[in-house]
């Protein structure tokens, strides 16, 4: 590090700080200096942006959105965007003991000195890390207690679609895709400061006029006697409805030509190429399938060129194609054929996550064999056709069997299946259906000609608990209680009789909390604060999560988790996110909810427009020529 910084009262210079790194595990996640990281002269930039990922370095550095915005912001000479991650507990102890404030990896400057402290909200269980990172920065947690213009605390990402639990702490939320709106707010800030402005409230009012900007402090909320919201009242000219932003043309949308390539191992340590946003499928449980609408593809030419450039600049020998459902990419086979030409030559292995079963053609499988063989993963989500119809997972048992048969004949011996329990209308028969489906796949293996000789099969079943999410047709549904989760888990465990099926669970306690936070209103801020003060952090890491602590936090705030998670919400109830517009109309969600109850499926976006409302953006799948993809 070229810069020498003496931290506030601590007098911890860089040399000493680095020795502290060596007293904790994996010091590489605090040291910075990675290839591709961007160092600027801070005296020559106008705006400093601390991009905070509220989880560990290994998780945050794997996140594509951060790479995109880091590259985009730093393309601008007047902005220096730096990375900040949540320290692991061992280093947090050192920081608190030695009075070391949270610092950015590039400059090692304290985060509190930045103009913007920006958080990406990828999952609800990271919310206490947001508070902890603010606290480690020495910044007051509540927006109202930060009276100066800077640092401005901003946040975006998928969880910003119901930002209310964090409304007390965050000054500005960015709704939808950040590439444009973030820079518009930064530009407004630059202009505001240049003109001598220094009043936070005034700045927030101006910012709230930008499309995609939600300033929670400019809204009053009224509650009825039952605790339900009766009214959202915008103030100071803030819009009654805030609309999300999207990048209409993916080919013209910024994509980084280089990544920060970490020295230490991270979760996804490879080049990643985004191929489209959104998903045509409309699975009714899936928030991503609704909030990223409409589907917008990048063209194969652009993907191929950008992917090659990225591999050349990073030195990565692995590349993955990223989207919500890779095989739905309209030009997937020609794209792979072209990419394989140079990936083979450069000894780069290509991986394709998020493959769906139903259009898993033998040709694609053949190409995947040329590529490095990774595991075969399917997500039927539910054990019976009836329930798959309810959730609009438009795949049949026949599809699954056909795909597995192709895969087995092609040499695969292991299949991983993802399921959820607790889906709306689920019965015991549906749960037993999961075990039955697993058994059928095991039986199928032994009937496939050309299966690998002398090898057994392993069907691994991974089960998570359904969490109803905002902006999905199931946003009205109750989440099943914790006791019921346990009963259904036990039922499934008892239904599996072969050792060829291995069963794994996602922790149900965290799912219960996730459920409450996902659909929480802004009174939840007090719960978060209580939980934080009681020591909650890193809640998505099983080892540090305490359900009882959280229940105490609810009780202390006079609220109950059940109110948020376990009750059926009337379709005309005002939800905490109803004043935010993510493209899909509430009428559509209600219609889809009713179809779900009737066990009726909805065709995907390419087969037939379901009228969700996202065509108002004038781009994407809604305007593709109708073609039959199946």
């Amino acid at each position, binding site marked *: *590090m070229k810069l020498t910084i003496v931290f506030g009262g601590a007098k911890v210079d860089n*040399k*000493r700080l*680095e*020795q502290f*790194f*060596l007293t904790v595990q994996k*010091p*590489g996640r*605090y*040291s*910075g*200096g*990675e*290839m591709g990281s961007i160092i600027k002269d801070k005296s020559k930039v106008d705006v400093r942006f601390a991009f905070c990922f509220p989880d560990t370095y290994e998780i945050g550095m794997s996140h594509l959105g951060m790479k995109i915005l880091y590259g985009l912001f730093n393309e601008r000479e007047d902005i220096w965007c730096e990375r900040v991650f949540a320290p692991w507990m061992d280093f947090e102890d050192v920081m608190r003991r030695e009075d070391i404030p949270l610092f950015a990896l590039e400059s090692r400057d304290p985060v509190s000195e930045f103009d913007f402290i920006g958080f990406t909200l990828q999952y609800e269980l990271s919310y206490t890390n947001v508070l902890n990172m603010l606290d480690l920065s020495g910044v007051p947690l509540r927006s109202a207690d930060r009276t100066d213009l800077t640092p401005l605390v901003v946040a975006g990402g998928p969880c910003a679609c119901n930002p209310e639990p964090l409304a007390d702490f965050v000054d500005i939320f960015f709704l939808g895709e950040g590439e444009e709106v973030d820079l518009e707010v930064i530009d407004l800030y630059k202009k505001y400061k240049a003109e001598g402005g220094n009043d936070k409230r005034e700045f927030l009012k101006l910012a709230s006029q930008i499309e995609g900007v939600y300033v929670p402090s400019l809204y009053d909320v009224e509650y009825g006697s039952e605790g339900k919201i009766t009214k959202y009242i915008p103030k100071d000219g803030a819009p009654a409805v805030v609309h999300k932003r999207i990048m209409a043309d993916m080919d013209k949308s910024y994509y980084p030509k280089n990544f920060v*390539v970490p*020295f*230490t*191992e991270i979760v996804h*340590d490879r080049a990643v190429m985004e191929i489209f946003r959104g998903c045509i499928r409309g699975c009714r449980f899936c928030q991503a399938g609704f909030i990223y609408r409409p589907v917008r593809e990048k063209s194969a030419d652009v993907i191929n060129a950008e992917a090659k450039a990225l591999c050349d600049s*990073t*030195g*990565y*020998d692995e590349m993955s194609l990223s989207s919500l459902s890779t095989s739905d990419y309209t030009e997937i086979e020609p794209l792979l054929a072209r990419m394989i030409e140079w990936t083979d030559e450069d*000894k780069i292995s290509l991986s394709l996550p998020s493959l769906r079963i139903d259009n898993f053609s033998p040709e694609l499988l053949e190409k995947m064999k040329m590529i*490095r063989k990774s595991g075969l993963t399917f997500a039927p989500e539910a054990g019976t056709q009836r329930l798959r119809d309810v959730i609009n997972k438009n795949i049949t048992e026949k599809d699954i069997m056909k795909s597995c048969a192709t895969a087995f004949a092609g040499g695969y011996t292991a299949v991983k299946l993802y399921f959820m329990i607790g889906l709306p209308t689920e019965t015991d028969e549906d749960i037993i259906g999961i075990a039955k489906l697993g058994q059928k796949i095991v039986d199928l293996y032994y009937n496939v000609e050309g299966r690998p000789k002398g090898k057994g099969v392993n069907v691994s079943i991974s089960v998570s608990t359904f969490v109803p999410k905002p902006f999905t047709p199931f946003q009205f549904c109750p989440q099943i209680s914790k006791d019921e989760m346990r009963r259904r888990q036990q039922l499934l465990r008892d239904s599996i009789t072969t050792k060829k099926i291995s069963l794994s669970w996602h922790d149900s306690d965290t799912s219960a909390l996730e459920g409450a936070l996902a659909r929480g209103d802004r009174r939840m801020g007090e719960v978060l604060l209580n939980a934080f003060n009681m020591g909650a952090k890193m809640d998505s890491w099983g080892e540090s999560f305490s359900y009882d602590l959280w229940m105490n936090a609810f009780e202390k705030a006079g609220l109950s988790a059940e109110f948020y998670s376990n009750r059926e919400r009337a379709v005309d109830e005002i939800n905490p996110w109803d004043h935010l517009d993510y493209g899909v109309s509430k009428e559509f969600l209600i219609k889809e909810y009713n179809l779900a109850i009737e066990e009726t499926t909805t065709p995907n976006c390419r087969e037939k427009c379901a009228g969700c409302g996202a065509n108002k953006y004038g781009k994407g799948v809604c305007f593709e020529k109708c073609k039959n993809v199946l």
Partner: protein
Amino acid sequence: MKNVRMFFKKSGPLRFVSHLDMNRVMTRLLRLSKVPIWYTEGFNRHPYITFALPLSLGFSSEYEVMDFRFDDENDNFDISVAEKMISDVCPEGIEVIALKEPVFKSGKIALADFKITFFKDSSATAKTLEDFLNLKEIIVSKTTKKGGTKEIDLAPKIKEYKILSDDELTLFIKLPAGGEDNINPKILVDKYLAEIGEQNGFYTVIRTGLYLADGTKFE
């Protein structure tokens, strides 16, 4: 395929990169350099690289050694061109000293030099350090490969040393290194600091050289 030996310095942010991670970092560096390296055959093809002697996490080094190979079609590739190609892509913290054809097998390494610098606020002094190093017996417990601990005497392991005390206190020391016998200077220095009652004494370690048993520089 021709064996090539790269000598380089490791410092700065690379200090925090473990031996295991170093493998990945150097693989990517070689790929970026476009030097025609030899890849292993088989399903999972990767560049063939080996390090002469692992370096402890946190240490810098002025003399790291890594071997790789030119691929079959490029046996006669100009080694000085390769040196330039790799130098050009090195990040801060990796500095190429030279590329040469290997002289000795890496198993021949028997000794290493270290430069240990104490932080200014440390209570370490030249006098107490010298007294400590001259003790007839310096017993420490060392973790064995099997996970247990055994007691060893460091006193006879100290081959030579020099203490420099001006602005900072610096210890230059030669210790056994390599497969036969390997002494991490950290256990010696930590023992010393414990003896003088210093809890959180900070110091930096630089490995400055590698030698054969007879003192010949490892090349």
